[in-house]
């Protein structure tokens, strides 16, 4: 099955990003395809490479980057939401790209299921 993912919450504050990541891993392991992960609202904060969690905690941003590197998952950050929150190309972590809300609508059209992770 081809899946689209929407992440509406920031890392660490809320479990939505963890759940979305674990869902993606599980879906890929089962042979499903992730068409795109779209980051919206505070979800855009998952994409900043300035994030530095304590050593004994998971690195949520790096985890997403690794998912993109290892599985070619398209990680798209909403430009309007990103600019509001100080996310720009210069502090974007590897594997993410900034684009418009149209990319969310498009993944809704192209995916068999769009799964929303948020509050």
């Amino acid at each position: 099955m081809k899946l689209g993912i929407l992440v509406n919450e920031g890392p660490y504050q809320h479990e939505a990003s963890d759940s979305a990541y674990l869902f993606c891993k599980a879906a890929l392991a089962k042979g499903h395809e992730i068409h795109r992960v779209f980051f919206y609202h505070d979800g855009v904060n998952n994409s900043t490479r300035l994030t530095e969690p304590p050593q004994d905690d998971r690195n949520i941003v790096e985890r997403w980057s690794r998912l993109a590197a290892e599985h070619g998952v398209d990680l798209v950050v909403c430009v309007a939401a990103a600019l509001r929150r100080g996310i720009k190309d210069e502090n974007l972590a590897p594997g993410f790209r900034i684009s418009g809300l149209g990319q969310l609508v498009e993944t809704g059209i192209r995916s068999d299921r769009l799964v929303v992770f948020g509050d």
Partner: protein
Amino acid sequence: MDTPDNAGMAEGATRKFMFVNRKAPYGTVYALESLEVVLISAAFEQDVSVAFVDDGVYQLKKGQQTKGIETKNFSPTYRALPDYDVEKLYVERESLDARGLDVADLIVDVTVLSAAEMGALMEAQDVVISF
């Protein structure tokens, strides 16, 4: 990716999109950013519905005054939705009743549905995006 930003819909595909608004208009940014997606989705010529449930019904409340919180009052934009061919607005009756609201309190014309009817309508969608 070869897909353009606000175009590039799948070959002639029209899907039923429903945006579900569950939060009060201010306090968090969900309502404003939801409205932004609704407007973008209209450019994709999809079959768009917008639902208002729980505190989301407050988004349509008449007489919003935001000067005191130094936030933009975006409620007039809901009235512009028909200009974007977004004409299917649904409000859950139970949510209105629980908050002492009536359709006369709302700034736009809506279809009022029971929770069960709303559930059935959600079931009939291809894509449900909730904020």
